[in-house]
């Protein structure tokens, strides 16, 4: 009867775990392995300025429409500043404000994006631009150029190509020369081009952004030209006149307005840095899931802060260690000190690595045992004695760390990660067993603990398993099912086959 409940419960757990797992894997596209990575770029804009005496308000254009890219997240690091994102005429603007600030100020805006072909320029068709008001003698030059180019073109695209060809001519005609007289940057140059296009009633605007490639400590904005042909936006290389867009061109903002607007400060400068990370496909799967509106993502560990994630990626492996523990104890039948002591030791091994972990652990326990036997002569009461052993363990750890540091072995430092209370208890248990049942039993159980710890370490260290459990925590339900089943395992333990070998019937 009870046996049946156990099977039903285990089956239920396994079914729930597996079905959530399949849903997340097949439908939401969570990756099974870690190496399914997508490049994610983080672009950081550092706004640097000297504060003035009064209140400060800084406005920075931030990416709005980014064809070819999808935003993963954005944030601002600006201590003491009020931060908001508003929609201005040129798209989104980040705005920082503070009542007063002293000295040089730096505020950061950070955005992470990944490539997504499906993101299009989803702008509405712009109205025909008004004729720009231009002073003489420039106005005449503009009119001459526009009418000349118009004669040599058929539509917006060919007009632009022809215009760019003329403007970029190494030996320009005098009208072009006149227009370009005050131009000293790419942005000014594109500004002149958009002005010319506006005079021809062609909607055009300057776009600025970066071709994303690898890691750039200081990225320079590239000015590009965007022209609407009445149907969609076309991109032109302002220098060559070629209708194209650089590879992985990430649009930061559009229009002729300056990137940053500062009130109450001076010497404003914006520096861009780009970093390429290979974030696994999980993040992308999550964005997809969020767009679907499923709640699977609300419970995903990837929504936790990075530091907490790191903690959980370790914590989630503890059930694996517990499963190994169950197998070693109830199915193999290895003696070990303490129920979960080997699992905790295995956790410590993660930091020290196996070889040094085993050496440090053995050294620590051996030294601790020696001192415990010396303490025994003092005839201390149990709890004070345990505390004394604990303090000795801490001192020993300190000693090992200092010694190994002196000898230039950095691994010795990681001894501090051993759970000292557990080690103190192990030393105490081991010394009691040593006295009561002799060194052989103590060694056997000590060795058993080490063997189980090593086995747990090996399984808890499997990278793909770690990824799998972290991405699909519901798999823990399957481990729970296995543990429940093992709880009703009434067969022989492996070691019993040896123990009772004299009794085997023929």
């Amino acid at each position, binding site marked *: 009867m009870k046996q049946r409940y156990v099977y039903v419960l285990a089956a239920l757990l396994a079914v729930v775990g597996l079905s959530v797992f399949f849903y997340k894997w097949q439908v939401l596209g969570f990756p099974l392995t870690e190496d399914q990575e997508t490049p994610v770029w983080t672009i950081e804009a550092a706004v640097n300025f000297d504060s003035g005496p009064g209140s400060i308000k800084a406005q920075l254009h931030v990416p709005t429409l980014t064809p070819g890219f999808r935003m993963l997240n954005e944030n601002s690091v600006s201590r003491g500043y009020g931060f908001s994102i508003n929609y201005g005429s040129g798209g989104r603007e980040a705005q920082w404000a503070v009542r007063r600030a002293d000295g040089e100020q730096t505020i950061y805006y950070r955005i992470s994006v990944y490539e997504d072909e499906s993101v299009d320029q989803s702008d509405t068709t712009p109205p025909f631009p008004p004729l720009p008001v231009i002073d003489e003698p420039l106005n005449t030059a503009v009119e001459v150029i526009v009418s000349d180019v118009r004669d040599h073109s058929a539509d917006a695209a060919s007009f632009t190509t022809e215009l760019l060809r003329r403007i970029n001519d190494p030996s320009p005609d005098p009208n072009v020369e006149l227009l370009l007289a005050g131009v000293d940057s790419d942005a000014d140059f594109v500004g002149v081009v958009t002005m010319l296009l506006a005079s021809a009633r062609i909607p055009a605007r300057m776009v600025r952004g970066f071709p994303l490639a690898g890691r750039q400590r200081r990225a320079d904005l590239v000015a590009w030209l965007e022209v609407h042909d009445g149907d969609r936006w076309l991109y032109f290389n302002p220098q060559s006149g070629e209708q194209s867009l650089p590879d992985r061109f990430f649009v930061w903002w559009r229009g002729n307005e300056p990137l940053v607007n500062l009130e109450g400060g001076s010497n404003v400068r914006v520096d861009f840095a780009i970093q390429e990370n290979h974030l696994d496909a999980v993040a992308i799967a999550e964005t997809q899931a969020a767009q679907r509106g499923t709640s699977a993502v609300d419970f995903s560990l990837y929504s936790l802060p990075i530091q907490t994630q790191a903690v959980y990626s370790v914590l989630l492996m503890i059930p694996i260690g517990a499963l190994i523990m169950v197998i070693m104890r*109830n199915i193999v*039948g290895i003696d070990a000190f303490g129920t979960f002591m080997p699992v905790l030791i295995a956790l410590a091994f993660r930091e020290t690595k196996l070889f040094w972990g085993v050496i440090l652990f053995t050294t620590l326990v051996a030294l601790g045992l020696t001192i415990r036997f010396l303490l025994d002569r003092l*005839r201390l*009461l*149990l*709890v004070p004695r345990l505390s004394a052993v604990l303090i000795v363990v801490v001192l020993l750890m300190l000693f090992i760390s200092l010694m190994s540091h002196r000898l230039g072995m950095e691994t010795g430092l990681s001894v501090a990660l051993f759970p000292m209370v557990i080690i103190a208890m192990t030393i105490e248990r081991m010394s*009691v067993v040593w006295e*009561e*049942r*002799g060194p052989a*039993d103590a060694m056997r159980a000590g060795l058993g603990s080490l063997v189980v710890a090593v086995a747990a370490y090996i399984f808890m260290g499997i990278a793909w398993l770690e990824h799998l459990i972290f991405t699909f925590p519901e798999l823990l339900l399957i481990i729970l099912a296995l543990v429940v089943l093992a*709880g*009703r*395992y*009434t*067969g*022989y*333990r*492996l070691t*019993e*086959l040896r*123990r*009772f*070998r*004299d*009794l*085997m*019937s*023929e």
Partner: protein
Amino acid sequence: MLTAVRKLRGAGILGLNERNADFIMRLNPRRYYPRVDDKVLTKELALAAGMAVPDLYGVIAHQGQVREFGKIVGERDSFVVKPAQGSGGDGILVVTGRSQRRRDCFRLSSGMLISEGEIHHHISNIVGGQYSLSGNPDKALIEYCVHFDPTFAEVSFQGVPDIRVVVYRGYPAMAMVRLPTRASDGKANLHQGAVGAGVDLGSGETLSGVLDDHVVDEHPDTGALVAGLQIPKWDFILESSARGHEVTGLGYLGVDMVIDRDRGPLILEMNARPGLNIQIANGAGLLDRIARIEQLYDAGATPEQRAAVSRREFAATS
């Protein structure tokens, strides 16, 4: 490996997992555990049921009382100090005499001398919980030291040999004698190196012995044959063991008895998790006997009747 499992099954050998899951968890309700885990309580219950137990000289329940040790012992030369909630015979001190020259120095069963101060420390450790199952504070018992019956003199090295009977639902299922050796430091626990010898439930005569999971015929220290010894008052021992079921309410029970030269069989302690070595000592599996008991089970039978059933059913066929 599979053949090994099949062979053990064939012999009816009970494994640890099966013992824990199918017998201890099913037949031994948790709430009755204190009755066997606390030896003071066991003693009281056994006395109330009219069973013979070693006299209790005194109990030391907290550190402040440790000083009273001398008063409890008085002028007695022999006594036993043991933790009330000890397991596996750990923490037991058997004192058999005093030093000729100094009255505050005691002689252990091993022949070693121990000062009263050292005994105080040992009692402090017991009270502090060093030997208790859970590590909780414990009590120390000081009780009558059994003068053991000469039956086993030839096959024990110091210490007190005892008789372990495994009782299933009130029916004695299997028994063995546990004989101390030099290695076991006078303690009658198999995992400490004592020799276990199976007992024919029908006659009360010992069978061959087991040492560290291996069958032995001779005692390792004395060289005397282990088999063929007649345990005195066997009927009484079986009946007392069967009565242990009523006293404790436990369905899977180990009853430990000693035979005193003067007072006959005494109940030393009872155990809710008796070990499985008894199977090796008897060269037989518990599962077969348990199955037979299930067939014959009669809820209304008295301890005497149940002991008689076991004697009849589980007599050695030679």
